[in-house]
């Protein structure tokens, strides 16, 4: 599962920053028919968590209503240099993980 994260290269302490993530995933609703006419089994990324230096700062639970290749963004406060780590899992138990570094000044 390919994913892309966007984090500002650097931020000032106390600054509100936007974090964005895009994940390549078909987000099968369970209602769509595949090429042979059978219903494709439901398979969506159902949970995604972001930890900033080990502390959970964002969590999303998703269902069949989300389009393929989900794109999420949220805001957090920059308080220390370190790492943002995303972890997610789909209905078939496949997991994905992606990380990005953040430099905080001041």
């Amino acid at each position, binding site marked *: 599962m*390919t994913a892309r994260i966007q984090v500002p290269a650097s931020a000032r302490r106390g600054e509100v920053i936007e974090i964005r993530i*895009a994940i*390549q995933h078909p987000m099968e609703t369970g209602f769509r028919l595949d090429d042979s006419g059978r219903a494709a089994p439901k398979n969506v990324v159902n949970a995604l968590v972001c930890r900033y230096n080990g502390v959970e700062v964002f969590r999303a639970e998703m269902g069949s209503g989300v389009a393929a*290749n989900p794109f999420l963004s949220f805001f957090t406060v920059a308080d220390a240099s370190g790492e943002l780590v995303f972890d997610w899992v789909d209905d078939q138990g496949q997991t994905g993980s992606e990380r990005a570094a953040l430099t905080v000044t001041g």
Partner: protein
Amino acid sequence: MTPRSLRDGLLAAALALISVAGHAQNAAKPEPLKSGLEFTGPEVRELQRDDFANPGMLWITRGERLWQEPAGAAGKSCAGCHGEAKTSMQGVAARYPQFDAARARLINIEGRIRQCRESRQQAEPFKYESAELLGLTAYVGQQSRGMPVNVPIDAQTRRHFEAGRDLYYRRMGQMNLSCAQCHQDNWGKKLGPETISQGHSVAYPIYRLEWQTMGSLHRRFRSCQSGVRAELLPQGSPEFLDLELYLAWREGGLPIETPGVRR
């Protein structure tokens, strides 16, 4: 609406739209040339413009990683022979399809990648529409972004150009329509929910919202063929390569926009 009645609606709309006109087999370019992006809505334009939100970038990220990965019996990566794609692949997509002299046939970017995969890396070539082939094709294409398409027709390619033009003007399918009747004679008009564009290939591979995934130019050709209920040609077929060459001539000068987004 069921897909069936939707299609019948489209059929009626298309028949009402297209007046029967005799066609000279002259190759013509639309004037002025306009990218397909100009016929989409503001949301689609915004999505294509935003290099992060554009879902096609996920495929490009995949392609960028594959570029570095050694593969096959040769144990070589694309980068191992071509170095940095930013320099070695710059402008390449703007001058394809080309004549492959060794095999005496046309070849497009997908074909080159499959060929390098098979004969240079000695690995299994990627399948058409696989995430790998789309990713690498889009990654190579992106290195020409903003550069004008420039595929001159020469002695070696003239025959293919003419075959592509003939196919472009040939009526096909139960609806008995040619590519030109929609994209040359009626661009800018509504067809059901869509506005017919000039049908250029500069944004491919594209992320299509209706497909919920990325797709190749040949997949787009197939959806147009299916729209007129014609028999679908296979991806990578010589006929589609001829068409691709004709389109490259017809859109000459328009800048490459890969990875495009369409509805």
